[in-house]
């Protein structure tokens, strides 16, 4: 079960992902990111209520890296719990995807990269 809420703060587009992102639910996250990168340049993903992620969710984030680089779109994740962060870490993907502790840190990093 996944819930995706979005809102805008200044020029930051915030995606709040709650629940579990697995092979069944990752399509919703995929569709949302696919939709917003057409118009937004500064995206931050609130993972505070993200309880679980499997490779299907990792795959979603990974699959947009190239497109985001080409379109100069910045994306930073924040508030990841230890289990979720660990799944990225197992494959070393925490080196490829920007992740920080707080929303403020995420906004600062988006502006810095």
């Amino acid at each position, binding site marked *: 079960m996944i819930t995706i809420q979005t809102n805008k703060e200044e020029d930051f587009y915030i995606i709040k992902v709650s629940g579990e992102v697995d092979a069944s639910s990752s399509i919703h996250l995929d569709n949302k990111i696919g939709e917003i990168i057409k118009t937004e340049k500064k995206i931050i993903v609130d993972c505070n209520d993200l309880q679980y992620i499997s*490779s299907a969710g990792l*795959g979603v984030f990974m*699959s947009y890296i190239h497109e985001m680089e080409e379109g100069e779109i910045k994306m930073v994740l924040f508030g990841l719990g230890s289990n979720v962060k660990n799944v990225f870490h197992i494959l070393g993907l925490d080196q490829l995807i920007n992740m920080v502790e707080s929303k403020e840190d995420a906004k600062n990093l988006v502006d810095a990269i």
Partner: protein
Amino acid sequence: MRYNYSARCSKKNLADIRSFMSKTLNNHFKSEIDIHHMVLAVDEVCANLMIHSHNCDPNKSIELFVDVSKQEVIIEIQDTGNGFNIKNYQEPTIKEIIVEKKKGGLGLMLVKRIMDKVEFIKSNNNNICRLKKKILASK
């Protein structure tokens, strides 16, 4: 101790499989991270089987067996689908996943990193995926 769970091949059932695994492993082990890893590994194998071997056909099912001893967990995931030959599996590089926008391929990488041993065995009409992990902190 042996535990058993059967699930229809619908991706919606993955959450129930995770819940079964989590409850089972919590009976025996202390380490939250080890439990989370094994739940994830099983989720990945089951998702792969449902999608690639059974085209998410809910009339098909997969069977889980979890054997827990003091210091080791052996998990078998059995089905009667096309079977998966690990010898034909070429692990993608991270670069390939990014450049070719592959959304798959990461699951088995996770399973192989998490578990101590991953075997795919064909026995009569059954395909068995056997996962083993040594656990030091049992309850």
